[in-house]
Every structure is written in C-alpha cells, then in structure tokens.
C-alpha cells in the first residue's frame, strides 16, 4: 500500500507544484453524512445504519485531495450476526488544459480499504485501487471518461479460492440546456472466482443519472435534483461518484435513487436522498431476491 500512496502524493505535488502552499489557495469542505436502510425479503439482513465523514481539499481547478472514512452496521435477522464495517478512502485528482485542444483532461486515483467482522471473511479485507481518465470540453457540455478499478478480497472461510475483481466503467455525460446534465455509465465487471460471485464470471450494467441544477436565483434554495437508476446486473461494483465499494457478495439487479441538494447558508448545503436497490442471492442452492430501501442526509460545509 505504501508505494501507491507515495506515487499518488508525487503525482499531486507534480501537478500542483511546490509553491501551492498558501492556505487561501485551497478550498476545503467537510461532509458528514448519515444513512439508514431496511432490507425487505432478505433472509439474513434486517437493516443497515451508516455514517461517514469526508474532508476534501481543492487547489483551484488544478488538483484536489479527498480523505474520508465511513462506518456501517448491518443488523442481521435472528440467527445471523450483525456486521460492523469500517471503510477508509483516499483520492487524488488533477486536471490539465493542453494548448492543442480546447479540453480539460482529468486524472483521478482512488484507494479504498474496507474491513469488517463478517464471520465468513468473504467481504472482509477489501482493497481497491481505482483510476479514471476524463476529457471534457471547456464549456462543460460534454464529458467522457473511462475508469478502471481493481479489487482484492480477503480469503473466504466458506468458499474456496481468491477473489480479484476488475471493473471498467466507460462514461459519457452531456449538458442538455445549461441546467441539466445526463450521464450514462457502463459497468463491466470481471470476477476471477465465479464461486464467490454468485456463479458469474462477468456482469454488466448501465447507470443513468439525470441532474438538474437550476441557475441560482437570489431567493432560491434548491441547488440540485438528481435521479439515477441502474439497469442490468453488477456485483462487487466500485462507485467512484459516491466513493463506495459494493463489497456485498450479492448480485445487484436494479436500483433507483433520488436526491436533492439545498442551500442553507452561503457556503453550507444539505443533501437529502432516498433509494431502492434490488439484489439476488443464492442461498442453500435457491435464488432469493430481496430489496433495500434507504435514505441519507449529508451536510456539506465549505470554507
């Protein structure tokens, strides 16, 4: 892990430069968030409670760093133990505008570490290295990116073999009329061990996100509305937008989420959201489908 962190910091210093040390050059934001969800039809899980704290530092349009941690507690059904999970996140990003083309090129690298007390050990000791290369026009009307994530999971106590997961996420985003943004992202996930991936050695899914950001009127509090849904199947996905690793060993077969951001001060905003996700899992050689309904609240303060 250490050489990767070292490479990340070297890349950051190379882009930002060593003169970028003045506090006023940086924009910092702190985002605490809380979530609660309930499972319906799950044979093993009752509910999940979570909290996270992210600190982000942005150096102009050139580069940024995010560090964060989150905690989740999955309450098991009677007879199934609770699972407590800790995840930490480190992300670096940089962008560059070449002279040759009127476009912004971005590079982002993320590290995730997820540890829990799952008795099977199958979802524990997850380490993810994810990267994303993006190109967007300077007017902010088109953006294309391609992401790659490599995940390693701990050795399972109940299922044989190692598990390594590779994920490709090509993405296209379009500005519709200055206030709307449509993003299409494909998830192409390859598992090294179908036994630990619900019998799948590969899954694919399409995520569609529509975001509405009204132009700021002097008396308006609404900052944005986002509607997202997922079509297809995916397992062990790494979601770069929400900095989340889906280390659950179940197949996700659909999702829909709605969130809204509200301005509560000059540099403070609240994000409220709710979502529904559908999963499939094999239990005692039978396929069981279940859903999860969740809500979250995040507060973002910038200074």
């Amino acid at each position, binding site marked *: 892990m250490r050489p990767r962190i070292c490479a990340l910091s070297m890349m950051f210093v190379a882009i930002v430069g060593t003169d970028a040390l003045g506090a006023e050059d940086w*924009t910092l934001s702190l985002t605490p968030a809380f979530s609660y969800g309930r499972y319906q039809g799950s044979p093993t899980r009752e509910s999940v409670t979570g909290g996270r704290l992210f600190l982000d530092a942005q150096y*102009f*349009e050139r580069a940024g760093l995010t560090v964060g941690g989150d905690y989740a507690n999955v309450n098991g059904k009677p007879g199934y133990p609770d699972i407590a999970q800790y995840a930490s996140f480190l992300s670096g990003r940089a962008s560059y505008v*070449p002279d040759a083309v009127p476009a912004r090129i971005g590079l982002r690298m993320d590290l995730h570490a997820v540890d829990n007390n799952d008795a099977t050990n199958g979802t524990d000791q997850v380490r993810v290295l994810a990267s994303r290369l993006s190109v967007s026009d300077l007017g902010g009307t088109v953006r294309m990116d391609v992401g790659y994530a490599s995940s390693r999971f701990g050795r399972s106590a109940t299922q044989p073999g190692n598990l390594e997961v590779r994920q490709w996420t090509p993405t296209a985003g379009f500005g519709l009329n200055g206030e709307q943004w449509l993003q299409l992202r494909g998830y192409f996930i390859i598992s090294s061990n179908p036994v630990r991936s619900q019998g799948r050695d590969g899954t694919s899914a399409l995520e569609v996100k529509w975001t509405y950001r009204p132009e700021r009127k*002097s008396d308006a509090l609404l900052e944005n509305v986002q509607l997202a849904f997922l079509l297809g199947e995916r397992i062990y996905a790494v979601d770069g937008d929400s900095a989340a690793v889906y280390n659950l060993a179940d197949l996700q077969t659909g999702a829909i989420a709605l969130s809204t951001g509200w301005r509560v001060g000059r540099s403070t905003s609240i994000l409220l959201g709710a979502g529904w996700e559908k999963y499939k899992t094999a239990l005692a050689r039978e396929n069981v489908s279940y859903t999860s309904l969740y809500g979250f609240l995040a507060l973002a303060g910038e200074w």
Partner: protein
Amino acid sequence: MKPYFLPSLTFAVFLWQCASAFASGNDPWAQSYKLEQGGLYAQAAAVLDPLVARQPPHEFALLRHAWLNYLQGSHNEAVHKYTAALKVNPRSLDARLGLTLPLLAQQRWGEAAYHAKQVLAVSPWDYLANVRLMICEEGERKWEDLAKHAAEVALRYPADATVLVYLARAEAWLGHAGKAKTAYLQVLERIPGHVEATNFLKRNP
C-alpha cells in the same frame, strides 16, 4: 490566380518582416516589436530567448515572452513565463494581470480570480483586475457576487459600458428583469445599438 501565389506572398511578407527585423539592427527589443506587429509571435518571442534564459532572468523579457506566448495560444507556456516573472518580482501587478489572461483562456476561473483579487488587494479599483474578476464570476455563474461587484465598479467607472453589461447579465440571470433593463438602457446610452442590450430590451419591452 496561380495556386502558388498565396504561399509566395506569405513567404515574401515573412522575408520582408525578417528584413525589417534585421534592419532594426541587433536590438532584440526593436526586432521583437517589429515581428509582433507582423503577427510573427513565435519569432518575436524567440529573439528574446537569450534574455529569458540568462540568470537572473530579465523580468521584462519574461513578461514579453509570456505575452507573446499568450498571443500564440500557448497558454501553458504563458502561465509558466508569467509565473517566472512573478517570482522575479512578487510585487508585479503586470505579471499578475498578465497571468489572468491565459488562465481565463483556459477557463481556470478560480485561479484567475485569485490573481485578480491579489491585484485588488493592493489596488482596489484597478479597472482591468475588476473586469477580469467579473469574467471569472460570470464563468463560475456566481450571479449574486457578479451583480454586487459590477454595481460597485459601475459607481467608480460611470462612463464605462462593459461593467454595465456584466451588471445587466447578472441581474437578468437572477431574475431581476427590471434591474437588468435599467442597466441595459444605460449601456445603450454609452454604445447606441449595442447588440446584447438591444436584444434583451426587445425581449423585455
């Protein structure tokens, strides 16, 4: 017209520029200005290379090199040279204002705004710095900030139309059609027939 006439003409103009530059003797400054006048920005910068490369670097050569790179569209090199000039003379407002040009061209609004604000910290009503900060505020769609800022600057430069255009745009985006209309009417007093103002007033009679 023969197909090779245009390249021949271009070459002839180039030769004439070079000859003029040569005629200006060994003075790199005179050569550089002449080449710039002819639109030969790369050559105009190149004659200053020895001054830029020397240690310590020649401050004005750096500034001119940066400007000529900006004119060529070599924005990253322009940023590099303006930054180098700023290191030579950290109090240089020329370097800071110059630096905003390639940053604005690359739509690096936050960074350009930072340098404009640094100029305003020592010279609060510097016209160029204020206008460039307004461009950043518009780029970042900070309409409230832009409206307030433009109104303040318009008080200091009441004859200026540019500032009033920014004020009008911001008020229009904020949904204050009446205030936008007032500002656009003032623009038309200063520039009769101003296209943007005329179009707005046609849509908002």
